[in-house]
């Protein structure tokens, strides 16, 4: 309820307080959803109202904007209260001090190599300091469960980064992040990121995270992307991770193994309307366990307004084998678009269950008017849990 009131208040404020030139756009989506809850084995029915607000041109230069997005929902099939999630609501001031400083205040999504999350706080970006830029953010670390906010007291998130732009589309960035859980340090991470294009058609990139508390590199990625032909892109990547836990979790004291992954991928554009992809990945779980992953796909637009995608994936080795096909398509007719798809997975878990999982779905989107549309989607799942598990949604979308 708090969320709804906040958004309504903000909308009212925008309409009454800003100059005539101020532009306010409000998008609403009212949705009815039904789905199976695997724990209760009941069909749940929810109603949800999403609101997204953009206020722009508040000042003469158009540097000040306000963005908001939230949801209230109620499970009709149970006695649950009305729940709310305020995803973000922030004031964005760009280009202060001769376009050298951007400022965001309020609830917002922040993301760096070292740390990411939603905070109630401030994000400051200093830019155009020659080739250098600096970002600093911090605030309350906002946590959500499936329907509502569950932020605890003493949960904070801080981060900072310094980057440097270099010739040949090169760039390096060093970042630092710290996360507090109930006023104790849960994570302290250093991130490093680089990218460069030393010669035409060749890009190199890398990204790493170092966990300061565990004194271990928790993630390391190095990749190369090549474009030997205009229509052909090749990618090779090496990735490794070392699981780390919050220092406030007892799991942070246990020994763990590294996970390593090597992959190659190719993408070939036969024409503007046809694209084929293929990939192979080798996964190494340490102590002699590994897995192989194969992928192949085709994206096609055989006729105007029709898009088709097909993807096959096969996995063998540690933890289980899986052979899966994914097929979907979308066709646009005048004001409507119709989409449909199926997923089929044949799987065998190691030491456990072997079965198939099938999904069939159909969806329609229709523009009633320029600013009003309706969408509907139905889905059936057949798997070891259900002979048929139906789910779907109906949505009314209005742009004010």
């Amino acid at each position: 309820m708090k969320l709804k009131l906040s958004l309504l208040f903000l909308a009212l404020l925008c309409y009454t307080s800003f100059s005539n030139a101020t532009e306010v756009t409000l998008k609403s989506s009212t949705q009815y959803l039904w789905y199976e809850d695997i724990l209760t084995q009941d069909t749940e029915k929810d109603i949800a109202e999403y609101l997204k607000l953009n206020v722009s041109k508040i000042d003469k230069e158009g540097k000040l904007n306000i963005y908001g997005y939230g949801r209230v929902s109620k499970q009709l099939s149970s006695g649950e209260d009305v729940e709310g999630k305020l995803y973000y609501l922030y004031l964005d001031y760009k280009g202060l001090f001769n376009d050298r400083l951007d400022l965001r205040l309020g609830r917002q999504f922040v993301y760096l190599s070292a740390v990411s999350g939603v905070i109630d706080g401030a994000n400051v970006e200093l830019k155009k300091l020659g080739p250098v830029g600096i970002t600093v953010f911090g605030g309350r670390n906002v946590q959500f469960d499936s329907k509502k906010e569950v932020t605890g007291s003493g949960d904070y998130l801080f981060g900072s980064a310094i980057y440097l732009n270099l010739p040949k589309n090169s760039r390096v960035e060093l970042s630092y992040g710290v996360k507090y859980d109930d006023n104790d340090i849960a994570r302290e991470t250093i991130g490093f990121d680089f990218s460069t294009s030393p010669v035409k058609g060749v890009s190199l990139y890398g990204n790493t995270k170092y966990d300061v508390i565990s004194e271990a590199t928790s993630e390391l990625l190095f990749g190369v992307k090549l474009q030997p032909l205009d229509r052909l892109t090749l990618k090779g990547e090496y990735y490794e991770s070392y699981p780390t836990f919050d220092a406030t979790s007892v799991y942070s004291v246990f020994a763990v193994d590294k996970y390593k992954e090597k992959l190659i991928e190719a993408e070939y554009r036969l024409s503007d309307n046809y694209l084929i992809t293929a990939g192979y990945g080798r996964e190494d779980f340490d102590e002699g366990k590994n897995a192989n992953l194969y992928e192949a796909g085709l994206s096609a637009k055989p006729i105007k307004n029709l898009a088709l995608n097909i993807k096959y994936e096969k996995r063998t080795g540690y933890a289980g084998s899986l052979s899966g096909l994914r097929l979907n398509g979308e066709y646009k007719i005048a004001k409507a678009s119709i989409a449909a798809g199926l997923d089929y997975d044949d799987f065998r878990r190691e030491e456990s269950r072997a079965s198939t999982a099938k999904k069939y779905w159909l969806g329609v989107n229709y523009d009633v008017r320029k600013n009003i549309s309706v969408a509907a989607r139905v889905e059936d799942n057949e798997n070891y849990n259900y002979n048929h598990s139906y789910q779907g949604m109906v949505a009314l979308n209005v742009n004010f």
Partner: protein
Amino acid sequence: MKTLNYLTLALAMGIFLLLGITNTQAKTDHKEFKTAQLSECFECHKSSNVQPNHDSSFIKEHRILAEKSDSNCIECHDQSFCLDCHIGGGIEQDLKKSISSKGNYMPKTHRSDFISIHPIKAMDNPQNCYRCHEANFCESCHEKLPQKGTLKIKSHTPLGTYNQTYWNSEHAKEARRNLQSCSSCHPTADVCVQCHSAKTGGVNPHPKNWRSIKDNIRDKGNPDKTCKKCHLQY
């Protein structure tokens, strides 16, 4: 050694800084290309020697671009575009997205009935799960499973003459490979502590660099939730 590596890294950044001051390129504002076709992007990227993105594997690789502190995603996408996948929103209906068992839209990466295949898919880079889900996300279902305790896990296989369940030699390897999955059903690790506690003279479960990191965990974290579970003195 690691400190030395990071000092070297910092030094390398310093050298790059000196080089960079003399020669940098202005970043292109992409707002006006928001509705452009990908083929149009490729033309420009090719001429400026910037590898095209938003290609077929972009869902996998967008993290690397988005995490750059001056990433320009926001020029075309509102933050709702990120959060609809990462935190389960749904103001923009993507007809390819299914609804989870908890009533949120799931990212398209969750194919088929994801509950059936997630034990296998979660092993393809286990860190991917934790980019959107907190560790307690797994626990919220596994703790409440009506058939809790019946999952067939190699290390949990009954081995005794009378089908008693006890930890076999596989459990250490399994736990090291995917400790996060252990925490799904045993969030407080009470079952681990039964044999690994120093209070009962248990088997040492700590990593090789324990001597180096134990003070970090004790001083920065919360020893009541960690050290104290197994040690009287720490």
